[in-house]
Every structure is written in C-alpha cells, then in structure tokens.
C-alpha cells in the first residue's frame, strides 16, 4: 500500500514541480543563448531573462515548502481527507508517503537549481578547472581524516536527511496538534509550531549536555593533533544523529497518534 501511496503522491505533486523544473532549465538556457548572441555587455533582454530565471528559482523553493504543508493539510486534514482516510491504509503510511515525497522534491529542486546554474554560467574548460581544484581539496580531506573520511561522509549524508526529515515532521506534528482544536485550526497549528519548536530546543539543550564525551583538547594545531581528536568528533556526530532520530520519532509519534486516534474532520 505504501508504494501505491507514493505513486499517487508523486503524481499529485509532480504536476506542479515538473513544469517548474522545465521552466527553470529553459530560462537558464534562454538567458545563456541571448547572452551568447548579444555582445559581451549586459543588455536588456539578458537582464529580463535573468530576472525571470531568478523568479522561477525562488518560486521553485517556495513551492517545495508550500506543497509540503498543503499536501499534508488538504489531503489529510481537510476535505480530501474524506477519501484518504477511508482508503484501507494505515495512518503511518500516509505520513511516510507525504514525508518521503516532500524530501524527494526538496532534494531534486536543489539538484535542478545546481544544473541550471551550470547551464547559465559554465564556460568551456570550467569543468576541467573545477575538477582540477576539487581534486587537491579532496586529497587534503583524505590526508586529514584518513580512514575516517568515508564514515564521516556517510554520517554527514544521513545527518542532513534526518535534519530535513525532522524539520518536515515538526511541521506535520504542528498541523496535527492544530487539528485537535475545533476552531482556528490554522492559527492553532502556527501556535503549536512555535510551542513545539521551543520545547524541542530546550530538550535539545538538556540532552546535548548529558553524554560524557571527552571535551575538545583545544583547537588542533596540526594534522596529527586533529587526527587524535577524530574519535571524539565522531562520538559527537553519532550522538547528534541519535538526537535527530529521537526528534523525528517524537514528531512522528505525535502525528501518528492524532491521525489514528484523534481525527475529527470537519
């Protein structure tokens, strides 16, 4: 059932995002083309085209945010919920489907934005230059981190996804809490967001002090000192990930509880 939900979620949101992606890439291309045809200076057509490009870029990122909220609110807590909640699907599957697709579009938007920048600005030979400058950087990272490099990269990746997920789940939980109120549910959701966010920060502040991880031995002065501290940094990163998981779980549990036990559609 989850895969079917994901399929419909992609369909429902893709019709918004795909045209935006195409428009963004198209205007990056058009701007580039006009600039190539015209002289070197900045003339009006290029400026206009660039303005539209910028506008679409902003619209795209605003849409990822708006869609994240709207799909959850409209599809599960408003009229469309009459269909969604009568499908033989468990509430957690609805939440997971919405969450994964929201994350998916945010990541893809980032990738599309990056590609559009390449289309707009990439000159012949740039790629070679980029590779040439990145390679030594990577080599230095490898020198510094040694065998830890891959582990740290993986943890960074997991950490960013978890942070993104906990941000989205925080918003879902806020909307679910707002749903508990009979009137002014939007306002209540907003209040719930502020409240939940504040509580989370307090909890985070307390939790971060609990583990007995050895403190930093001052700023590392050279590669050897840095390497010696890596295990400590490693412990911090792992603990950070564990906290992200904890917060994701709390927000998810709140949302899940309200959707399955306290649903009251208008």
């Amino acid at each position, binding site marked *: *059932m989850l895969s*079917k939900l994901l*399929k*419909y979620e992609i369909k*429902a949101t893709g*019709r918004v995002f795909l045209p935006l992606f195409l428009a963004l890439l198209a205007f990056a291309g058009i701007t580039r083309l006009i600039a190539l045809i015209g002289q070197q200076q900045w003339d009006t057509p290029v400026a206009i085209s660039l303005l539209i490009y910028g506008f679409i870029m902003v619209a795209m990122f605003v849409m990822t945010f708006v869609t994240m909220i709207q799909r959850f609110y409209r599809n599960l807590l408003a*009229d*469309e*919920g*009459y*269909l969604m*909640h*009568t*499908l*033989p*699907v*468990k509430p957690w599957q609805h939440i997971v489907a919405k969450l994964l697709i929201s994350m998916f579009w945010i990541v893809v938007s980032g990738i599309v934005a990056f590609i559009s920048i390449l289309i707009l600005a990439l000159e012949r030979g740039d790629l070679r230059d980029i590779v040439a400058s990145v390679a030594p950087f990577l080599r230095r990272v490898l020198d510094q981190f040694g065998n830890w490099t891959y582990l740290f990269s993986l943890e960074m990746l997991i950490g960013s996804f978890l942070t993104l997920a906990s941000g989205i789940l925080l918003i879902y939980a806020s909307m679910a809490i707002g749903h508990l109120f*009979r009137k002014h549910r939007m306002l209540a959701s907003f209040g719930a967001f502020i409240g939940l966010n504040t509580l989370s920060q307090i909890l985070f502040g307390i939790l971060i002090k609990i583990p007995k991880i050895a403190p930093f031995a001052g700023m590392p002065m050279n590669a050897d000192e840095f390497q010696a501290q890596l295990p400590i940094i490693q412990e911090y990163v792992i603990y950070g990930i564990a906290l992200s998981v904890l917060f994701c779980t709390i927000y998810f549990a709140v949302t899940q509880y309200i959707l399955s*036990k*306290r*649903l*009251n*559609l208008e």
Partner: protein
Amino acid sequence: MSVILECNGLTKTFGSKTALSDINLKIELGQIVGLLGPNGSGKSTLIKLANKLLTPTRGNILIGGQEPGIETKKIVSYLPERTYLNDWMRVHQIIELFTDFYQDFKPEKAYDMLKNLNINADDRLKTMSKGTKEKVQLILVMSREAELYFLDEPIGGVDPAARDYILKTIISNYNEKATVIISTHLIADIENILDSVVFINQGQIVLTSTVDEIRDEKGKSVDDLFREVFKC
C-alpha cells in the same frame, strides 16, 4: 441474520454541542436502511464515526464486530455529503486509484455506469458541474462490492432523471450479503426502496422500524410518519 453495524452508548460532542447522545443501534446484513432526520440531527456525524473520520467522545461503534480501522475500511463503501475528489484528476485516473486501493472495486461496472449517465471518463473533475461530480462519486462508491454502503445525501444535488437511475443502481447493486444505509431528508423519493428506517433527531434515535410495520400497523407512509414525528 448477523449484525453489520452496532452502536453502544455512542456519544459525540463538539465543544459544548452534543451531536450524538448515547446511541444504541443494531443494523443487520441484507437490507436497505433509511437514516432519516432533519438537518443537523446527527446523521452525518454517525456515518463519519463509522468511517473513522470522527473519534467518538464516549461509547463505541462496531462494523462486523470490529472498531473502525483498516479492516473495516476494506468492507465499507462511503459516499460523503461533500465533494472530496482532487479537482485536477480525470475520471479515469480516479477509477485507477480506486482499483489500486480497493480489492472489491469493479472498474468495468464504473465505466458502464459512466456511459449510461453520459459522463466522459477523460473529463477533469474541475470542468464538471456539481451534480455531475456527485454522480461520479456515487458511481465510484457503488462500483465496489462492499458489505456496507454509507450513502450520505446521495440524491440531494442531482436532477430527477438521474435520481431514478441512481436509485435503480443502488437496488441492483445491493444483494443479500450487503447493507445499504442511506441518509436523507428527501424521503418520498427513496421510500420505495427502503426495507427499514431509523429516525434520528437531535442526536437521538427516535424510532427504528421496518417499512412494512409502519405501513401495516400505523397505516401510514414513511413520509407521512416522518412529517408527524418531526412536526415543527
């Protein structure tokens, strides 16, 4: 006969307002039941509780002996009193959605009914009139081979000709193994297809009876009895 719907002390309040008050009700399989009452009497609330769109304040509601949940959703086909379908979808896309999620959904039945009511499966819901949307929703709901159908005001917004077709559809889809619960205040139109009635007023059950009993014992039509009971 086995009981398909059962309410025990079912109560639902919204703030200080009581929508349903201590409802006790048993409905058996294999009949068409009219859930009749004036506006705001609690008909929709009862149906929404059965579909888990609302959470009871007290008491419980059981469908085939189970609390509303994923298992009951598989056997309940529900027509809400409002349009809930995504505007941007085409009719055939919604049929695909229903086929995907409901094992008892029969797409050929749906296409057949669409043809009879002259609705194009390629049309988007956005372009349809309110009445046509209602017809589409009813077609979707009746194309399932469910055990329990809840039809909340199924004929309110459609023209008389379509009304006849819809009632005919309900009767022809209904079988010994299924129960249809129709909520409405347009009693005269559906009186002939009902087996029994539940009168509900201000959140309480006023009367449950078979239609034959009303006719034979009281010598009245359901419509007349309704007007008598709910006289303003």
